[in-house]
């Protein structure tokens, strides 16, 4: 019976995510058409032949009515066809697909740094509430949430790469289970993950402290569980619930941070691609980039939503689940 509700809720979440992605795609399309100036003129520069101008317009379907353009674009989208980059003439979807693993790996590694570190230190600080350890963690995280990723990266680069040559400063080796590959990913992952860890630490600490004041914690102590047993059996899981929902948001910041880190450490990921495209006003590429980014964090939020459904049984009973 309970599983029925779980299935329906999950299904609804997936459908909503898909719908949102399509809505985003539509909005992106419309917005791109509103950008001031004629895109073809931008690409061609100051001196051009009228023939070239007409050809490019026709090639990109810019001479068709707006609705028709949208239909064509939409149908292509559903087939995974995102057009061609004005800059490189290469297929946008192919380029993005090629670069996606690097970005995903970066994000996952950053999460691998941020989650254990953040949650662990958050629990520890809450456990030692009011004592030196707690104050130390609060101060350290205050600094951590105030440092921009590129500054963390720059300092790490200066210290560990340029000064002491432990890791390479920039660059990227294609994926392999090797030291060459991972040594290039350590500093970027740290630069991206450490500020997130500080945020997650504070969230976890705050959530756990709130849980400590709840009646069922007192009831657990009255049942004879020690403080430590109460923490592990009842405290942590309840405290994790609100934190998990916020982690979905954090992935959004991770994606934004990935763009920065990719630029700093010269990693050929999706972020670097998007950045170049924006500077060059390469609309098809920008569209593709936005869609990919939107897809990444929508999927991440979906995973978080499903995780939340699993963690908190109170949500499951209503078929659709209430919006948080």
């Amino acid at each position, binding site marked *: 019976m309970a599983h029925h509700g779980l299935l329906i809720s999950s299904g609804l979440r997936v459908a909503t995510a898909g719908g949102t992605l399509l809505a985003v795609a539509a909005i992106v399309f419309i917005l791109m058409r509103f950008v001031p100036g004629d895109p073809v003129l931008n690409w061609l520069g100051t001196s051009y032949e009228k023939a070239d101008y007409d050809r490019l317009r026709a090639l990109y379907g810019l001479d068709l009515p707006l609705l028709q353009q949208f239909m064509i674009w939409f149908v292509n989208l559903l087939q995974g066809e995102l057009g061609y980059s004005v800059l490189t003439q290469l297929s946008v979807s192919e380029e993005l697909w090629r670069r996606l693993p690097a970005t995903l790996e970066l994000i996952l590694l950053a999460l691998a740094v941020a989650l254990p570190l953040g949650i662990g230190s958050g629990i520890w600080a809450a456990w030692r509430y009011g004592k030196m350890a707690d104050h130390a963690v609060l101060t350290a995280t205050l600094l951590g949430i105030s440092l921009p990723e590129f500054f963390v990266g720059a300092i790490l680069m200066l210290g560990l790469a340029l000064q002491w040559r432990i890791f390479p400063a920039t660059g990227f080796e294609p994926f392999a289970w090797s030291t060459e590959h991972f040594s290039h990913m350590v500093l970027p992952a740290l630069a991206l993950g450490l500020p997130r860890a500080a945020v997650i630490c504070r969230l976890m600490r705050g959530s756990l402290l709130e849980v400590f004041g709840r*009646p069922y914690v007192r009831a657990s102590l009255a049942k*004879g569980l020690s403080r430590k047993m109460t923490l592990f*059996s*009842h405290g942590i899981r309840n405290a994790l619930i609100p934190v998990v929902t916020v982690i979905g948001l954090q992935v959004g910041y991770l994606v934004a941070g990935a763009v920065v880190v990719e630029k700093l450490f010269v990693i050929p990921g999706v972020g670097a691609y998007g950045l170049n495209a924006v500077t060059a006003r390469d609309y098809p590429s920008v569209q593709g980039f936005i869609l990919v980014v939107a897809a990444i964090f929508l999927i991440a939020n979906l995973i978080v939503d499903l995780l939340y459904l699993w963690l908190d*049984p109170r949500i499951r009973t209503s078929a659709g689940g209430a919006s948080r």
Partner: protein
Amino acid sequence: MITKQAVLVVDDLAVDIRGAAVLGGVSLTIHQGEALGLVGESGCGKSMTALAILGLLPRGAHMRSGSSIQLQGKQLVGASEQALYKVRGGAVGLIFQEPGACLDPVMRVGRQIGEALQLHRGLRGAAQQAVLRDLLVEVGLNDIDRVARAYPHELSGGMQQRAMIAMALAGEPVLLIADEPTTALDARIASQILDLLDRLRRERGLALLLISHDLAVIGGRCDRVLVMYAGRAVESAPAAQVFDAARHPYTTALIAASPGLAGVAPKSQLRDIPGQLPAPGGGGDGCAFAERCTLARPTCGHRVPAWTPVAAEHAVRCLQFEAGWSC
């Protein structure tokens, strides 16, 4: 008459929070199989007494030296944490006012009760399941499998409270403390829960400390009653004597203000007690009730009355019963 064993002896229990006294020297005794009702307004310290017995005072609260709490002869004040863990949920079971809030919302009810079974009786697996079923039957629950697999929010208030009672019974207690067990439940369910506590007391020979602000809950269910005001006990008597022959002005006022007290005060004659409880530490040097007492005299504000016996097993803390009081 066979003198029953004293299960709990509390002597001069005093608790301060940040310097202000919230409990000022409370003494009580509960015998085996006896039900003691602890009654008083919200904030008088009755719940604090229950928590203090188990050493579960909130942060910032301290027990004053000289407090003594003896459970079956063993001193609990100053006992090691290990010893206290065994007592909590073991020899002493505690149930609370809002059972829904006192159950972990993300853990199945059966598992929470199982936790207590494992902790205090070392039961696991099939043996634990068997005892769990017995407990759930004993507290009057039907559809045991569903209840055991349910999450707290899937159960009604009455079922949640029965589950809490089952959890308290898991450790085979000699004393059950029920802190406002029915305040959050509606009248019919409340009555059922109180009946349940009665039945368990008789069947298991439990001692029961029933805490409530509602005299109607206490009346008829308890052998003895202890009335508290502003952190002190002000009257202690067998239940019948409290209602028929209350001596302390606060007790009489309380009875007059309680709706539904069978045959004692018809609703049309309810009288409110004017004024409010003083804040902890703000009571001054004299009797804390003095400023609201209709019989107050100037001396009442200067001296805390001593605990004075007035009849068999009946004592009061009021200056008018001390020797030398001039009428």
